[in-house]
């Protein structure tokens, strides 16, 4: 029984008429009768139904009478057909439904006082609604609670076997980690194979469980729903920008819930293309850092070499006085600033305004520099747009999706759910190009395992293959024959055999994939850290644009080039101008019109052109002593960049290092002044997610200790420096942004972007394209011989940056094992058992650590999560700075591994 959405971009279902309770209703042919009834505003009780997956029909509550049938039918599994006459009310139906509830109640334990679901329990609601009283209790199940899983407890005494958890896991998330098992005379939900649960721990099963059968270990028995204050806000872990609710009890975060819940069970199935409302493991179980004991509660100032707690007033005086005196003595060029893209738009805007207008320096950068700017610069250059061109709906409804260098289920789990829905519901062909056997590759129709670091080469092979197979869109290329000729010429130098050798993918597979992509009417490219965070990321994005261009995917609806971002507001950081090359609204810093506009609006002269500095340049200037003061907001360059970046030397030379962070980070330990900042849960604001949606952050609780929101501290510094604007709330800053960038907020909805490649293709493309296709494959050979292993540092599903390591819940799921993940074959070849110690050596140094087998890795590659610096694997990484965008890449190294 499958009731897939009947309306897809390709087929439109017929509109039919039927009658519900005597009223004519129009609906789409073939949808679930339950949805049709709920669309009229009538709510029929149901316990096992949820619109995001196929109806299951186990609870027997949604009974309706259909004319011509003697017995009531289940509305959820029945299809709407023309001319149906349906009755949803009546005493007979009420009694039948009551019977269905009684069936569940009679074996349910007397658990309400201790159950976490009490007050948010469908069984309670149904029993109360149907006025069940004086029921003879049947035999209790007395099933022991399954507490083996890391985050969830399964109490099968409370289970009503509705199957929602199993269905959401199998159907929506395609993880399929749960199953029914008949044990001890009762049907129970267990993890696959009756083992401890091992899955992505997204907790969507917990969200849809209508009773308390699945409970959250981290908040077990700590609350009742009525004690909690619910604040809907935006998750602060990745660029997906999922909406979620933080539920707090005074200053304690008890749990995080998602809009996906058994409570919102009816909806339009086709609307799930915009998101199914669930959240991932990080969002749901990684909230502990908000009220962590490690939070900074007081400002710290360095006295006699140690950081001591100091009152705010004193600390602010120090900061302002020192900044002012450095500015007076050495000019504004002696001051620089770094900010994290976890801050809100308002804070990012205020930060760059503080640096530019109050201090007068253009030496500022954000963590979007670590990769996202590669993408932004490329699409700005080539397409004239400043972010990805498609939204979640386009991804869901695409016919072909090309995922390059992105372990999307790990980095952006909810965007991954969109890809999964594309696969499952819209039968999309998915091409995954990655050096790791990722989870999405396991689901994809065309998983392409390439050798580590050869994603760029593969893309060139794709372009070459498209040209060779003549899959070219004549209309798109015909408009720019000169550019196309140049591309053809450049690609002529690429040999598919060399590509096949370099990437490890046979030529015919490259051809097949190229054909799948080129022939799909709606094809989406999605690139991730394997492209934008690697050397030459900027050029690889341009190659992707080449591919999209020649196959005619640019500007066609449902097609485009996209990326995923790691931090929640990288897009906002670029949009708000927290980068030396951009003013707010992505206006170029050297654009005289924009300079004029902002100088007037801010009532200050902008810093001169040509003196700005990006992150690597700022660190260089710190080292050289040109920069005397550095203001770091939430960034932690010391722990992020490898030793070869010489961050420590740079920071130690500074006369003033001000760190503003919720935690005492490695960088903050070197600081002269540490200001305690709030997390996102304690402030208002907005962030811009990867789709370009502007999403609200809402204050869920009062700031912990004496910490203050970043905007508050920055306003105070600006005022201390004699720069006038007094913002009393983020709303004031927002109003200013609205005035300067009309339409940016756009009620949270991103504007549709249409790529305009014409200018790019007709000016200078022909000249520049040649260099991009030259010699990518050449240097590989000798390097491989000397350094046989490819070491990648990347993200885990359970972590995001360094922030999540402060969340005890996530650390419990994924602690720092301190082990290097290696391919099993390699391990046997080298005679390594698990936990055997090895020495890993790169050109930058060597580290000793233990190993663990990892089935997803290719032979000749190894992996270490970027979230942990113990052991300091990151220091093995060479630092390469992109010549076009100054993006530092340091996630990939070639190493040797020796057994010790």
């Amino acid at each position, binding site marked *: 029984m499958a009731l897939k959405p009947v309306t897809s971009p390709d087929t439109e279902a017929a509109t039919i008429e039927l009658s519900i309770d005597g009223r004519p209703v129009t609906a789409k042919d073939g949808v679930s009768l339950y949805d049709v009834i709920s669309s009229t505003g009538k709510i029929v009780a149901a316990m096992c139904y949820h619109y995001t997956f196929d109806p299951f029909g186990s609870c027997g509550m949604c009974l309706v009478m259909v004319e011509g049938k003697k017995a009531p039918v289940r509305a959820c599994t029945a299809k709407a057909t023309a001319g149906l006459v349906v009755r949803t009310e009546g005493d007979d139906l009420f009694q039948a439904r009551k019977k269905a509830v009684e069936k569940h109640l009679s074996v349910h*334990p*007397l*658990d*309400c*006082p*201790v159950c976490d679901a*009490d007050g948010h329990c469908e069984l309670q609601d149904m029993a109360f609604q149907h006025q069940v009283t004086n029921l003879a209790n049947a035999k*209790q199940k*007395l099933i*022991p*609670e*399954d*507490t*083996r899983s890391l985050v969830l407890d399964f*109490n099968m*005494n409370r289970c009503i076997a509705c199957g929602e958890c199993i269905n959401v896991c199998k159907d929506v998330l395609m993880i399929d980690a749960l199953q029914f098992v008949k044990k001890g005379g009762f049907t129970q939900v267990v993890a696959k194979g009756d083992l401890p649960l091992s899955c992505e721990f997204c907790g969507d099963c917990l969200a849809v469980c209508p009773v308390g059968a699945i409970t959250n270990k981290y908040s*077990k*028995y*700590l*609350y*009742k729903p*009525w*004690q909690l204050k619910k604040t809907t806000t935006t998750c602060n872990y990745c660029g997906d920008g999922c909406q979620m609710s933080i539920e707090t009890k005074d200053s304690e975060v008890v749990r995080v819930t998602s809009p996906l819940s058994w409570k919102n069970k009816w909806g339009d199935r086709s609307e799930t293309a915009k998101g199914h409302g669930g959240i991932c493991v990080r969002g749901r179980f990684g909230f502990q850092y908000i009220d962590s004991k490690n939070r900074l509660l007081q400002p710290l100032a360095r006295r006699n070499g140690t950081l001591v707690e100091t009152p705010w007033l004193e600390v602010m005086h120090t900061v302002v006085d020192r900044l002012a005196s450095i500015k007076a003595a050495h000019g504004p060029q002696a001051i620089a600033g770094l900010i994290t893209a976890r801050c809100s738009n308002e804070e990012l805007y205020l930060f760059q305004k503080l640096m530019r207008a109050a201090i007068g320096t253009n030496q500022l950068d954000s963590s979007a520099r670590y990769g996202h700017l590669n993408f932004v610069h490329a699409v700005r250059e080539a397409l004239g747009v400043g972010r990805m061109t498609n939204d979640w709906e386009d991804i869901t409804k695409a016919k072909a999706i090309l995922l390059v260098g992105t372990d999307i289920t790990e980095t952006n789990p909810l965007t991954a759910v969109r890809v999964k829905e594309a696969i499952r519901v819209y039968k999309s062909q998915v091409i995954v190009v990655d050096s790791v056997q990722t989870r999405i590759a396991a689901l994809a129709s065309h998983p392409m395992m390439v050798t580590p670091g050869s994603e760029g080469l593969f893309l060139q092979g794709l372009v070459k293959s498209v040209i060779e197979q003549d899959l070219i869109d004549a209309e798109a290329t015909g408009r720019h024959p000169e550019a196309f000729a140049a591309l053809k010429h450049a690609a002529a130098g690429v040999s598919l055999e060399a590509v096949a050798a370099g990437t490890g993918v046979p030529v015919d597979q490259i051809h097949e994939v190229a054909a799948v992509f080129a022939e799909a009417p709606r094809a989406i490219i999605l690139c991730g850290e394997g492209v934008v965070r690697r050397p030459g990321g900027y050029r690889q994005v341009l190659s992707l644009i080449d591919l999209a261009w020649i196959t005619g995917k640019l500007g066609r609806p449902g097609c485009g080039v996209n990326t995923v971002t790691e931090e929640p507001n990288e897009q906002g950081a670029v949009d708000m101008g927290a980068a030396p090359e951009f003013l707010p609204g992505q206006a170029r810093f050297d654009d005289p019109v924009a300079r004029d506009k902002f100088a007037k609006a801010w009532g200050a002269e902008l810093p001169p052109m040509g003196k700005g500095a990006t992150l690597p340049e700022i660190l260089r200037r710190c080292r050289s002593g040109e920069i005397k003061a550095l203001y770091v907001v939430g960034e932690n360059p010391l722990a992020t960049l490898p030793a070869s970046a010489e961050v420590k030397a740079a920071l130690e030379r500074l006369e003033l290092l001000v760190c503003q962070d919720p935690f005492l980070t490695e960088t903050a330990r070197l600081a002269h002044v540490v200001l305690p900042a709030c997390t996102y849960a304690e402030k208002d604001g907005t962030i811009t997610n990867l789709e370009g949606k502007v999403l609200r952050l809402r204050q869920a609780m009062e700031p912990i200790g004496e910490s203050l929101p970043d905007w508050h501290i920055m306003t105070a510094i600006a005022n201390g420096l004699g720069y006038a604007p007094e913002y009393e709330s983020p709303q004031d800053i927002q109003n200013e942004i609205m005035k300067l960038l009309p339409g940016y907020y756009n009620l949270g909805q991103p504007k549709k972007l249409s790529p305009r490649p014409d200018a790019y293709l007709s000016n200078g493309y022909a000249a520049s394209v040649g260099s991009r296709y030259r010699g990518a494959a050449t240097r590989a050979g000798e390097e491989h011989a000397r350094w046989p292993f490819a070491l990648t540092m990347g993200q885990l599903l359970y972590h995001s940056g360094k922030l999540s390591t402060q969340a005890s819940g996530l650390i419990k799921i994924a602690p720092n094992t301190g082990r290097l993940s290696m391919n099993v074959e390699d391990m046997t070849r080298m005679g390594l058992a698990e936990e055997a110690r090895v020495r890993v050596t790169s050109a930058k140094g060597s580290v000793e650590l233990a190993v663990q087998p990892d089935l997803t890795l290719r032979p000749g590659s190894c992996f270490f999560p970027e979230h942990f610096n113990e052991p300091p694997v990151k220091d093995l990484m060479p630092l390469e700075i992109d010549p076009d965008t100054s993006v530092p890449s340091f996630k990939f190294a070639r190493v040797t591994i020796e057994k010790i």
Partner: protein
Amino acid sequence: MNVGAMINKLLRAALFYEIWDAMKVTFKHMFHRPITFQYPREQRTLPDTHRGALGLLRYDDGAERCVGCDLCEVACPSHCIKVVSAEDKTLPLSRYASEFYIDITKCVFCGYCVEACPVNALAMTKLYEYSTHDKRALLFDKKRLYEIGERHLEDAKKYLYAHNQEKDDQQSRDYRYFFPESVLKPKA
């Protein structure tokens, strides 16, 4: 009006007859026992129903009755109860109140918490003398509430009986909330 009545009325007015009438009642009361009593030397006998300070109760074997379900908290019209519940890790599946506060300055003594409690862990007692010079002492914590419950156990039992919360003593002894059985590690 006849003359006699007129004279009668005049006479009454002149002699302030109504005052004598009233004084008669007053004088009668001179021989009446005083109805006031001298608190604190004399104390009122309070009925069993009396809604005094709240106490927490235990089972006969000393185990806490309260399972930390927080229903009293939501039932309280003046929001004076705060329950912090937690998992009792020593026993499978069991929940208890790790902290329990009643802000007695806010309490309106309506008895709803007792009515709500699904395990009869709360009861009101006849205690009303807890005035103090320190306001902080009026935030009754779990320890104090159990103390009250122990010291005024008889009153508490009588209260529960009088307010139909308990049928009789026997029932209260027989009844016990049991946590559904469980083991921490099921057999693999």
